[in-house]
């Protein structure tokens, strides 16, 4: 028994040591291959490059530039896929009803108090990730997933009842999500509409000005690059992902009483 413990401790310490060695070595020698494909090189070169204003997206974070600018349409479809998966959960549990006043208890005072302090900080952090998606690693999806942590915390610590008390209903969340999806589409077609009014060429999902179209989203706000539509997409994506994951969490933690009808419906079909 003791021999095994010593072996486990030794191997764990070896793991930590080797990982820290790799991190330390990274500063001195090359670990990955130095060859970057020409496509990757062009992304790195143009994603923030004010001297080539026809190619750049004014986003310091290259991942955000690729996701929302170079392949914006693809990401938009990904967002709708998330919506579709929530609808799939709805169809599985059809017939459920949300009941208030079931007198939940929740966990002890200690956990509740500690969670109470953490929740506003999580909100601030999630919004920091989302609004700085064009400057630092992060973005709308990451921010939304972080924000959804508060719903899971509330469900675990205070119980689902508290979410109802705060005004969360799955139907309302669906409406918010739909509105944000419409907001995404509006941001995407705004350059097209402006181009239509000014009678010039413009594209759907256009961010900065191109060679044959001078229409451009705002590239700077105050003293930091805003990256035009990337910022707006990130904010809408934050709300979409937050409401989506919260709906999923709420539906998965429904109580027995609320699911009674859903079970009856299933029995009829069986």
């Amino acid at each position, binding site marked *: 028994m003791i021999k095994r413990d010593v072996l486990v401790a030794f191997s764990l310490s070896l793991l930590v040591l080797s990982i820290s060695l790799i991190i330390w070595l990274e500063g001195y020698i090359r670990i990955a291959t130095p060859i970057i494909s020409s496509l990757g090189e062009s992304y790195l070169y143009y994603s923030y490059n004010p001297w080539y204003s026809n190619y750049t997206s004014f986003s310091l974070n290259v991942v955000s530039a690729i996701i929302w600018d170079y392949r914006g349409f693809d990401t938009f479809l990904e967002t709708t896929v998330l919506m579709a998966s929530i609808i799939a959960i709805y169809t599985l549990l059809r017939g459920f009803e949300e009941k208030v006043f079931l007198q939940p208890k929740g966990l002890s005072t200690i956990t509740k*108090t500690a969670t*109470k302090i953490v929740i506003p900080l999580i909100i601030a952090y999630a*919004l*920091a990730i989302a609004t700085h998606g064009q400057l630092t690693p992060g973005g709308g999806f990451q921010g939304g997933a972080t924000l959804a942590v508060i719903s899971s915390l509330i469900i675990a610590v205070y119980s689902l009842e508290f979410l109802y008390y705060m005004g969360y209903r799955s139907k309302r969340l669906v409406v918010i999500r739909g509105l944000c999806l419409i907001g995404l589409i509006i941001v995407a077609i705004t350059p097209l509409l402006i181009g239509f009014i000014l009678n010039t060429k413009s594209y759907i999902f256009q961010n900065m000005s191109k060679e044959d179209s001078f229409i451009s989203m705002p590239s700077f706000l105050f003293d*930091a690059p805003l990256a035009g539509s990337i910022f707006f997409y990130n904010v809408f994506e934050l709300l979409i992902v937050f409401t989506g994951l919260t709906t999923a969490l709420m539906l998965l933690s429904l109580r027995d009483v609320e699911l009674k009808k859903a079970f009856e419906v299933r029995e009829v079909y069986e």
Partner: protein
Amino acid sequence: MKRFLNKLFVFTIILVFFIISTGSFKYYTLVIGVIVSAITTYLFESSIVKKTLRLYDVLKLLYLFKYIVYFVKAEIHAHLELVEIILFNKPIKPAIVAVPYHVESDYGVTLIALTVTNTPGTIVLNIDTNSKLMYIHWINASTFNPDEARLIITSGFEKLVEKIFG
């Protein structure tokens, strides 16, 4: 404005946290941070700080520093005791003892419970708010008398916590 100091207190903490987590000090960060912390303050201020703060309460921060110093001392002491148990096979007497507490506020109870859990050798298992008892698992229970156990485990923390949270 009602409870202005409460709002300012919560607002400042969230804004500082926002700036630290973004790691930038540009106007862009500041403007968005002010908006975000104003909204979260409006939503959560009443639930976070229940009693109305006064300017005099700033002095209580000094007790918080005193608490940290006391906590570090207790932590080192508990670690040494545990090291003795592990290395020299000192006999142990694990037991769950009920310890009364006399702190009123939620934050005070939470702080004491988390500190006791954080010091090695003692863990708060459950808390009973009606009879004001903490159920603490103690690795070396020298006494089963609730009041004597309170003197050994929590009374030192409790004195300082009462001064901080009242």
